[in-house]
Each structure stands twice: as structure tokens, then as C-alpha cells.
């Protein structure tokens, strides 16, 4: 079973992603901050990351994305950015995000479709 790492600080949002991904046949792990996400990636690299940008604890999603891109072991893990910010798409893609989605503008089904699309490619 493919594993999706959800990097998201809002617990309700975590729950919604988790429920939808589980129903779609994926295993999920959840990190509520970037430090936790780093630990989890090192312990068990996921097949894909759903990443929020604005995160608590000083580091943001871009810091984590840069870490993944710099490490040859994690560089190939596709990252989908899911955020409330609509002005950071260029930056996110330059750092290495495969897709940039604005939370309010996508349905939960579209998120699942994007996950499947990037895992297939």
C-alpha cells in the first residue's frame, strides 16, 4: 500500500485528508509541524507528500520542500502543495513542488485525483 505523508497543522483538515485518502486505498501518516515531518521522512520515506506552507514552529513548508529536494534519497518523492496562499505558486514550483493547489478552490476528489496522477507518473 502506498503511503502519503500529510504535513498539515489543522487537525480537522488532517482528518479530512486522512479519511478521503484511506477510502481511496492509501496509507497515511500525519505530521503537525516541520520537525515532525523531517523525522517521519527519515524513518519511513513516503510515496507522496501533501504539504501545507504556513506551519507552526518557525519553519514553513518551503523549508521542508528544500530539504527533500537537496537529499538524493527524497528528491524523487512527489510533493503536492495545498495552501491558503495564492501568491507562492512560482516559488513552490521552482523549489520542486509537482503541483500547487489552493485549498478552497479544489474539491476533496480533485485532491485524490492529483495524488493518483502524481503517483502514476
Amino acid at each position, binding site marked *: 500500500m502506498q503511503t502519503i505523508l500529510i504535513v498539515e497543522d489543522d487537525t480537522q483538515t488532517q482528518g*479530512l485528508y486522512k479519511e478521503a485518502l484511506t477510502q481511496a486505498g492509501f496509507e497515511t501518516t500525519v505530521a503537525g509541524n516541520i520537525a515532525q515531518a523531517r523525522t517521519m521522512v527519515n524513518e519511513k520515506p513516503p510515496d507522496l507528500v501533501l504539504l501545507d506552507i504556513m506551519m507552526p514552529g518557525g519553519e514553513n513548508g518551503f523549508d521542508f520542500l528544500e530539504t527533500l529536494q537537496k537529499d538524493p534519497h527524497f528528491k524523487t518523492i512527489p510533493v503536492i502543495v495545498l495552501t491558503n*496562499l*495564492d*501568491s507562492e505558486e512560482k516559488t513552490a*514550483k521552482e523549489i520542486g513542488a509537482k503541483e500547487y493547489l489552493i*485549498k478552497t478552490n479544489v474539491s*476533496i476528489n480533485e485532491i485524490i485525483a492529483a495524488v493518483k496522477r502524481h503517483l502514476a507518473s
Partner: protein
Amino acid sequence: MDKLIELLNPIFADATVGEFTKDVDLSQVEPQYLELCSGIQIIIDVIREKIADLERLNSELLQESVERQAILDSIGEGVAVLNEHGIVLFLNPVGQQILGWSASEIEGKPWVTTVPLEYENGTEIDTSKRPFESFTYSQEADNLAQALYYRRKNKSRVPIQTTVSPVLSNGQNHGTIIVFRDVSKEWEIEKLKEEFLSIAAHQLRGPLATMRWTTETLLSTYASLLDPVVREKIEWVYHNNQDLIGLVNDILSITRLSKGTISEEAIPTNVRLLITKEIDDLSHQIKKKHMNIDLRTDQIISDGKFALDPNHFKQVLRNIIDNAIKYGFKDSTIQISATFDGSGITIVVSDQGMGIAPKEKTMVFHRFFRGSNVIHSGISGTGLGLYVVKQYIDLWKGSVNVESTLNKGTSVTIHLPIHPL
């Protein structure tokens, strides 16, 4: 004769240095020269009168000049006066304070090269486009109305608002008057306002997304568990949530578009797919009003891809199609066509509905405008939809046109000068 010369000599000597104070003593003049000397005395009297007139005029002019100077000096805005060659003739104290140039330093210098004008990103506006040279300020006003900065003497920048007026007389250009104002404080307030709006809108997006996905999950995954009445209520929540998401997107777009800081990420996009997606997203409202959608696209639109920012383009489509649904009649058809005609994409969305009063047609792109016939109709709306559409279309250098007949319907046409990839 000698006596006459002796008599007139001091008078002429004074005249050579502009003095006309002495009179010809006619009692001393021999009779044969009386006529000549009387004539000279008359000339002296006339000259005196003329001098007195000139002195009075000069004094009036001086007074007027002092008053004008005092007015220009006390104006709370910078004022620069240029001659017909763009050379600075005058800069008032406020102008000197804003620009850091003293009057004696700047007067006599060419304005455009001495006081560079820049956009917010630091790009200097080419001197050939500086309005007082072409005297087409009103035509360029829209472009220049945004963020403009003057470069001061010490090379620092100051945001300004400026009005440039040519001095014309009988169709001849005699120079230019530039009135400008330091708008640093206004900008600071505006910036804070925008930051607040931006933060507020972003903070709203979090709960709105959660609400959207929760209601979506309830309506799909848990559909079988829902009582029809409960389902309908959840649908209300879902659609109100969609309206709020649209409003937040519009507010964020307006904030960015007005400041010229919108971030565009053009990627290869299939236009037909975007339109059908918008129709799908709005399918509930369409079904509720028993409306039909007649979508027609040509081969290039159906199969081709265009470099577009899909999020922004979707927002434009959504605002137009959403209006067609809101203001279209029940059981009517909305026609949507998208074609590529060699010069670009044309999308037409036509509804059969309430329409817009002819006198209000020119106002449809104004911020917060709502037609007088819809205000009391109970149909909710913010009056931001078409304003946002127009702002985006302008950004993409396209055009948007609205044709409408009251109680018949409205047709919105957008044209974008883009080509398939």
C-alpha cells in the same frame, strides 16, 4: 542760437541718462525759437506721463507677481513650472522639500532628466513617455495612475500623485505646470489596509476549505445516511460556502490587481476542460433552476492548450457563468461558446434573463455595482464579479463586452489575444 543751446543742453544731457525732470524755461527763449521749445516741452511732458504710467504698471505687476509667488509658495503641493522645452522655470518650496532640490539648483535644468519618474519595481519611465513632452497626459493617465515615484536629488524615492497640464494659448504650447504630492503616508495606510485584507482573507480560507470538504464528504461518502431534508440543508451550507469562497477570492484578486502585485502562473491549459469544470462546480445551482447549458467549442479550444493561469481564468469564468445562472430565468438555456479565430480566444456566455437597464450598461464593470432591477430581487451578490473579470481581462490585454436587453437577457463576450501552444 548760443543762448538756445545753453538753455537746452542740461535738458538733453539729463535725457541721455533717462532723466526728464527739467523743464524748458520758455520765458528765456527768443521768440523765433518759441515754437520749437514749446514742442520740446510738450514732448518732455508726454515722456513724463508715459514714465509715470510705466512705473504704475510695473508696481502693479510687481504686486501681482508677489501675490502669485505667495500663492504658489503656500500651496500644500509641489508645483513645477516648465517652459515649452521642458526646462524648469520655477519650483515652489513644497516641491523643493519633496524633491530635495533648491529652486536655484533646479531652475534652468531639464525636468525629465533631473527628476526621474519610476514605477514601483524601479523601472524608470522612458523620458519620451513623460506626459508633458507629448501633452497626452489624459490618454496615459490610466497607466500612470498607479504606483509612481520621483527620484529625489539624493537618489531616494518618493511615491507621488501628479497632475500634468500643458499651458496652451491659441493652440500654442507655452510650457507645462506639474502639480505633485508626496503620498507616502496614504500609501502606508493603503498598504496596512491591504495587508489586513490579505491576512483576513487567508485566515478565512482555512475554515472555508474545511467546511467545503466536510460538506462534500457528507454529500458523497455519507449520502446514503442522509435524510432528504438534512441533505438539502447541507447543500445550502455547501453553496453558501462556495459563495463565500468566491467572495474571498474576489477580494484577494482586487487587492492584488489594484496594486499590480498579482502573481500569474501561466501553464498549458485546456480551455474547454476549464469551462466544463466550472459548469460541474455550478451544476447544483443549474439543476435547481432547471436550466440547460449549451456549450459549443471549436476543435482548437476542445483539443488545444493555451498558456493561462488556470486559477485566475477559472475565477473569470466562474464570475461570468455564475451571473448567467443567478440572473437567468428558470427553465432557460445558457449558451456558452468558445472559439479561436486566429487572433485569440473568444468566449461568449449568453443567458435568457433579467438583463440590465440600458442606462446602467456602462456601470457593469464598476466595483460594487448591482443593477437596479436585481437589488430588491432577493438574489444575493456583491457587485464585484464583473469588476474582477474586467481587471483580469485588462491584465491579459484582452477585451470584455456586455450586451443586454432588459427582461430578455445578457451576453458577455471576452476576447483574449492568446494562441494555442
